[in-house]
């Protein structure tokens, strides 16, 4: 049902190097290591940058030169080569769709759109680590995760076209929650879902996305605490893109985000959010913990919002072009492409095919969006309740009769 290859996790790589994270010392349920078991084997590529305490696999910028053990690295990262390529493909599709959506908005085809450009690795790396039947709860910027779930992107963009709240896909079929706008509020839904899955005896992980700004909201705190107390296997994936609209991280919190996990007694990890393999491996690890015994994890994916907050925003009012340029250097797509080709995982033919597929997908998306029509007026009343109560039936009749609409009176 979801068109992507199943994960083929090959666990237990020899000589697995446990990466020490500075999570904790004493907390009962806090684990001080990201990798407790030998399930992740990064012989070569995974490094902990001691300077900023961040998990990183790929060289920071493509210009930093080839990755270690060039030409033969992929076996060291215990991820199937096909999956390595698939993640690139998904990132490319996300990038292309995101640009197309921005263009569609500029042309008046969408009411508003919040670009994800720069955050493709954070989204694809994490969503890809989930089994297809495990739920993902997005906020409003997760077109990339929707791509992983094989969601029809014209349906995804129904939200931003003003066609329908939440979006048009079937959340149950896609295991992908509706667009959630009140910042941080969806974290509680993910926790409730995970509690419910656990009550059903299912050992699965649930992934929820939120931003750096969202960490300030009470809901996110309550969600983390509930998850820890009820051992709801939620992966809290914070895309720290440095900005909450115009407010920089430094005015949002005085503590590193990954450290906030200590308040709840579960692991917190920081990964390079522009490094799809680091995000993937950290999430895969968190997913395993969640499946095993319901341990939640907070993952801070350090990334950057290259675009404006949304197409309605003018980011130049509050940040410099240099900042953006600096982060653009670390473009997650270019970094990964360099690594893939440097390590012989993918060749030019592959990249050309992906580009062609992305172009075709973008054209289809454009047609799908431009060709879509508003929902009929009766939909105003269709799903307020399971059945239309009499008082709403009357209002529906009024609306359909459209009292007064025939009078041709302009509104002002």
């Amino acid at each position, binding site marked *: 049902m979801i068109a992507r290859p199943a994960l083929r996790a090959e666990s237990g790589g020899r000589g697995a190097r446990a990466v020490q994270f500075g999570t904790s010392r004493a907390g009962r349920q806090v684990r001080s290591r990201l990798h407790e078991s030998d399930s992740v084997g990064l012989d070569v590529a995974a490094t902990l940058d001691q300077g900023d305490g961040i998990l990183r696999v790929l060289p920071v910028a493509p210009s930093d030169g080839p990755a270690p053990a060039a030409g033969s690295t992929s076996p060291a990262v215990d991820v199937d080569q096909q999956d390595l390529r698939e993640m690139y493909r998904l990132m490319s599709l996300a990038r292309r769709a995101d640009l197309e959506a921005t263009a569609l908005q500029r042309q008046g085809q969408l009411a508003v759109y919040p670009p994800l450009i720069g955050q493709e690795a954070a989204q694809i790396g994490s969503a890809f680590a989930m089994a297809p039947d495990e739920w993902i709860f997005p906020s409003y910027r997760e077109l990339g995760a929707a791509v992983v779930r094989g969601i029809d992107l014209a349906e995804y963009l129904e939200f931003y076209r003003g066609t329908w709240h939440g979006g048009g896909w079937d959340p149950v079929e896609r295991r992908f*929650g509706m667009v959630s706008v*009140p910042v941080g509020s969806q974290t509680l*839904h993910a926790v409730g*879902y995970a509690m419910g899955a656990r009550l059903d005896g299912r050992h699965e992980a649930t992934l929820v996305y939120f931003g750096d700004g969202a960490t300030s909201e009470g809901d996110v705190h309550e969600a983390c605490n*509930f998850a820890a107390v009820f051992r709801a296997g939620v992966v809290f994936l914070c895309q720290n893109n440095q900005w909450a609209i115009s407010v920089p991280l430094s005015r949002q919190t005085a503590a590193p985000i990954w450290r906030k996990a200590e308040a709840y007694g579960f692991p917190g990890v920081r990964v390079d959010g522009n490094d799809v393999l680091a995000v993937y491996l950290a999430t895969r690890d968190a997913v395993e913990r969640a499946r095993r015994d319901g341990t939640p994890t907070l993952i801070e994916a350090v990334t950057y919002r290259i675009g404006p907050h949304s197409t309605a925003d003018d980011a130049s009012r509050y940040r410099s072009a240099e900042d953006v340029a600096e982060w653009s250097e670390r473009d997650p797509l270019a970094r990964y492409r360099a690594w893939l080709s440097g390590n012989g995982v993918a060749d030019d033919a592959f990249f050309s095919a992906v580009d062609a597929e992305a172009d075709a997908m973008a054209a289809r998306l454009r047609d799908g969006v431009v060709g879509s029509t508003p929902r009929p007026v009766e939909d105003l009343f*269709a*799903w*307020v309740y*399971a059945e239309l109560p*009499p008082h709403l039936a009357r209002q529906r009749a009024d609306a359909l009769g459209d009292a007064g609409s025939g009078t041709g009176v302009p509104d002002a």
Partner: protein
Amino acid sequence: MARALGEALRRSLAEDPRTLVLGEDIGKLGGVFRVTEGLQDEFGEARVFDTPLAEAGIAGVCVGLAVAGWRPVAEMQFDAFSYPALDQVISHVAKMRYRSRGRLQMPIVIRIPYGGAIGAAEHHSESPETYYAHTAGLKVVVPSNPADAFTLLRASIADPDPVIFLEPKSRYWAKADASLEGLDGDGALSGNGVGNGNGAGNASATGANGKAALLTAAARTVRDGSDCTVFAWGAMIPRVLAAAQAASERGTEVRVVDVRTLVPLDIDAIATAVRETGRAVVVHEAPLTAGFGAEIVARIVEEAFDHLEAPVARVTGFDTPYPPATLESHYVPSAGRILAAIERTVAY
């Protein structure tokens, strides 16, 4: 009424394995009002469980539990402590079905002990029905007696949509309400008939067939009369009946309608009563301004204007914070104030 509510929860838990009960202190303690007493023992900690002290959290995880196919029945410990959950309730509980075009159902019940006149401390005596009734996507139910409490709670749990279930806490242990005889059925509501004042006759015993009964508009005439109709709900009903009794002794026959479901509102029953009696009074504990009484007045005007012989009087709490316990008797509508309003209305 506390026992009737507990019994309704017990049966729902027993019949439908997807039903859950959660909240603060509802497990071992059985709730601060003992409504959930014994449920954790009977159904286990998996299905009846205490949560951390966080109301937005409670409402928010209910949304997720519903997505996972559960039917959570959450308790907010007191009226004013439901406010931290308002954002989750307004923005998600009420809207998720709409947002998902019906793909995500929200069969959530949020039980809230509400109302005053129990000598309680600040924040323990509020009547928040307006906040909920104004929020489209919710149903809002208020029982006034044990039999209705049982029937309506059963129907609310069975309903596929979110229900705010307001329990008049001053009636939890009222002596006159203590009998549980006549409690039966799966929560199907019969229509608007004249009952015997405690509602028991209304619980239709259609058996525990597990079929989801839809919670429909279900006002109920609890006293007949032709001179004036008083509309009320929850803990106001006994006071209204006392006032009606006193009026009757003075020769005025007052009809009393227990509104029971604020949303969906039984507009027809309201209109019919006013058409037949020509005069109306609305009574509630919540403050006057934008209280639900205003909605009833507006409906009366819309539906029965030509039959209306006097202005509709509202007898309500004042537009002040709910006062300290030693002053609350001046705040909560008394039978005396209700009677005065009836007499003014009838004499108009």
